[in-house]
């Protein structure tokens, strides 16, 4: 039995550093440590700038800091892309529209062979 990935690893990385929530908040430019606590518990999602600041602070990519969330988002995107691909394949166009559809399908095929960024 394998448990699901935690929503984020902020707490792990913060505790590894020995920094308090208040200190992390100070480095991130947030008013108080309460917000850092909420991010750690997954009650709030940090805005993009704060997420980037967290990446810079711990030197860990956002996708690894928020691994659980990252996996969920990635899965949703893959599911929606699959629907889009099915829809594109069912289109029977002629002329320039068909060329655009073919280009999109080609990109989707190429994309499948590209490894995602860690």
């Amino acid at each position, binding site marked *: *039995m394998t*448990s699901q990935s935690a929503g984020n690893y902020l707490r792990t990385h913060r505790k590894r550093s020995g920094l308090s929530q208040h200190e992390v908040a100070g480095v991130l430019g947030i008013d108080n440590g309460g917000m850092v606590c909420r991010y750690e518990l997954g009650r709030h999602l940090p805005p993009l700038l704060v997420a980037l600041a967290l990446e810079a602070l711990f030197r860990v990519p956002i996708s690894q800091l928020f691994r659980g969330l990252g996996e969920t988002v990635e899965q949703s995107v893959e599911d929606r892309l699959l629907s889009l691909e099915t829809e594109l394949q069912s289109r029977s166009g002629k002329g320039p529209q068909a060329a655009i559809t073919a280009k999109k399908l080609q990109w989707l095929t190429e994309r499948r062979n590209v490894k995602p960024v860690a």
Partner: protein
Amino acid sequence: MVHDKGQERVLALDLRSGRAGFVVLEGLDKLLDWGVRSYTPRYGPLEVTVSRRIASLLGLHQPSVMVLRLPSNRLVKKNDRIRVIVRTLRKEAKRRSVSLRLLRRQRIKKIFSAQGRATKHQIASLMAERFSDLAWKLPPKRKLWQSENYHMTVFDAAAAGVAHFWRPDAQKP
């Protein structure tokens, strides 16, 4: 290192009557969280306090197994608080579909004794070697007249977590 439980996430607790040390392990080598939670009667009865203080860890880390390190049988029988705490945690684990494993102190000691780590300090040192994040909290060896260091419970919890991954045919815990 031989282990058969892969990347299982484990919440290991060292239960004391007034507080519990905890570690969260993902597999045998990845330490996610650690610390001490006290059951100071802040929220009313002991059940409610334990529920709030410990169950929050279950919510935060979503482990698949909760390992409880228990004192000796004699102490468990004597200590009502420990019995209440175990009962409360059992309920919480059931409610969240988390498997519960009870490990007695003697059982953990036996596992580590096979490696020549028989004393509490030796086991704690082994944990500090394995998990570098804990190393700075390793207390010096206790003298006979000293009381136990506050953080020792974290090392006991870590030992319980590692012991959970141990299987009889393994050479090292």
